């Protein structure tokens, strides 16, 4: 059965080539090192999305949605338009579209968007979905206030320097008429999470603690990321001109249960630690729900 007409708009034509490249070509490109770090990163994601249906688990997506959905309903209102930056395979985008929001999903990986498209058709929300293949720098092509809300989940952390972070924030604020939902890796959470990205050696832990950055690329997906303490994150949002309504810890599970066998609900952990400022620094992500002024 063929897919109904639902096109992916390539804002960045060069990404079309990325989608057409063979897996082997991409692997070679990443290994050789003559591509820029940004391209290698995008290629890593493309490969990751060719391998797995989604990089965000259902449980993790639910944790975000639990916070984001009620907030969007109250600030943006049902039927509002949402730009999901770095939508991936649409773990959040599909759920939001199902709730009646008009979803604009942008991601640099063509494979991720193909998966998103299939999912949208399966869920019957293709009418609510617009897909763009582009990088962060392509966001400048959208006009001011083009969307009611900018949703940037697990994307900002991959801006590797202060300039990139600042310009990403400015773009989000420019594009969103009403609200911005954005998250960052928690510095203490990342230190304590026993991330596989961090080798068990003192220097990596210290560099994360001192500079809030892991600079070493490798493996599947991106391994270069920055992280912040809650205060630093709060400060960054205020500096971008956003009014912070709520700051929420997301994902204790990865930190608390890293070496433990046996399952337990993610949400229960959020309930246990609810309102404890010391624990809130220890979730893996910090989510900020903000209004534009």
């Amino acid at each position: 059965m063929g897919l109904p007409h639902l096109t992916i708009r390539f804002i960045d034509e060069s990404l079309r080539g990325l989608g057409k490249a063979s897996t082997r070509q991409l692997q070679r490109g990443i290994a050789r090192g003559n591509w820029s770090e940004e391209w290698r990163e995008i290629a890593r994601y493309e490969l990751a999305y060719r391998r797995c249906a989604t990089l965000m688990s259902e449980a993790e997506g639910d944790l975000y949605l639990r916070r984001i959905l009620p907030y969007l309903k109250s600030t943006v209102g049902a039927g509002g338009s949402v730009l999901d930056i770095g939508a991936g395979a649409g773990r959040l985008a599909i759920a939001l579209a199902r709730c009646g929001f008009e979803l604009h999903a942008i991601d640099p990986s063509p494979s991720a968007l193909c998966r998103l498209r299939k999912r949208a058709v399966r869920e019957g929300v293709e009418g609510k979905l617009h897909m763009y293949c582009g990088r962060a720098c392509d966001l400048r092509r959208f006009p001011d206030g083009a969307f009611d809300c900018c949703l940037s989940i697990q994307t900002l952390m991959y801006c590797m320097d202060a300039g990139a972070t600042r310009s990403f924030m400015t773009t989000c604020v420019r594009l969103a008429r009403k609200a911005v939902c954005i998250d960052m890796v928690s510095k203490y959470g990342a230190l304590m999470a026993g991330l596989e990205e961090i080798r068990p050696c003192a220097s990596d832990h210290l560099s994360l603690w001192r500079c809030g950055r892991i600079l070493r690329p490798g493996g599947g997906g991106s391994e270069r990321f920055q992280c912040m303490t809650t205060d630093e994150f709060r400060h960054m949002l205020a500096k971008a001109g956003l009014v912070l309504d709520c700051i929420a810890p997301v994902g204790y599970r990865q930190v608390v249960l890293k070496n433990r066998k046996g399952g337990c609900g993610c949400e229960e952990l959020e309930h246990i630690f609810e309102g404890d400022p010391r624990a809130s620094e220890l979730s893996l992500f910090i989510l900020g729900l903000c209004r534009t002024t």
Partner: protein
Amino acid sequence: MSIQFMSERLKQLHCRVVELLGWSEQAGIKQALGYSLAYLEGRDPFQARAPDTYLSPLLAFLTDHLDEEARLLEVGAGTGRFTIPLAKAGFHVDAVEPAATGLETIAEKARQLGLEDRIQCLCGSYDCLGDLDSGAYDGCLALQSIMYCDDLDTVRTRVAELSRLARSVIAFDLVSKYGYIFAGVPDVPATMETIRTIYEQGTMPGKDTHRKERLCFATYDQVAELVAQSPLSSPRMLPVGYDMVMGCRLPAAEATIVDEFFRTDPNMRDLSMFFLVLANSQSHPEGGTKRSGQVPQNS
């Protein structure tokens, strides 16, 4: 339905085990029984739990404040993880341990290293310390032992008791509540019940039928409060064992670097695995062997 024993020896064994377990339950020494068996099998559960980074600040503290020949009391000596290095450093150590099989290991190690005259093995527990004379020792140590109880009140009583016995210094440690919850300790079942109990009540219910250990947890602030209420002066609290919480055991040298670094960040202090408390005992104003060196205040 009754069990039919096909061998008289197995029947005798069963009767003895039942008797032993029942007796140890009544006497409240199930823990000692569990450790006796573990040490007998050549296992030391504490070996994996205690970070190597204890020893350097501890030895530096003791040599700063005590003469080389000073007498130390170490409660919960296990198989001599700290006893042997302390004796090697020249101290005379009375090692108190409820599991005699642990003491046998210490005695054996002492014999091999020629430290027999510096170590005395005493089979006992915290309940037995009342018989010892006040100020009988220059320093009292309770490492990886004081926290095996039901609550912080018991810890407070134990600290007071150690302080009574020590003329000069005491050292003990407690498990960090947040550290333990976030450590991903492999032997803690990941049930919400365990995590909730540790978080809300600060204790862990007995998990092992043999050892039946109960563990008491504390936040940094709770330890600071406990120390302030105890007869101790110039206390210094060192968070130790960050690498255990981070889920990677670093080599001792690297772990020391990480410990020293993170110690400077107040947000990190609840995230070590243990809090090591080094303090002067106030109970004996005449003091110990080296009164000149006061413990530097924790900055």
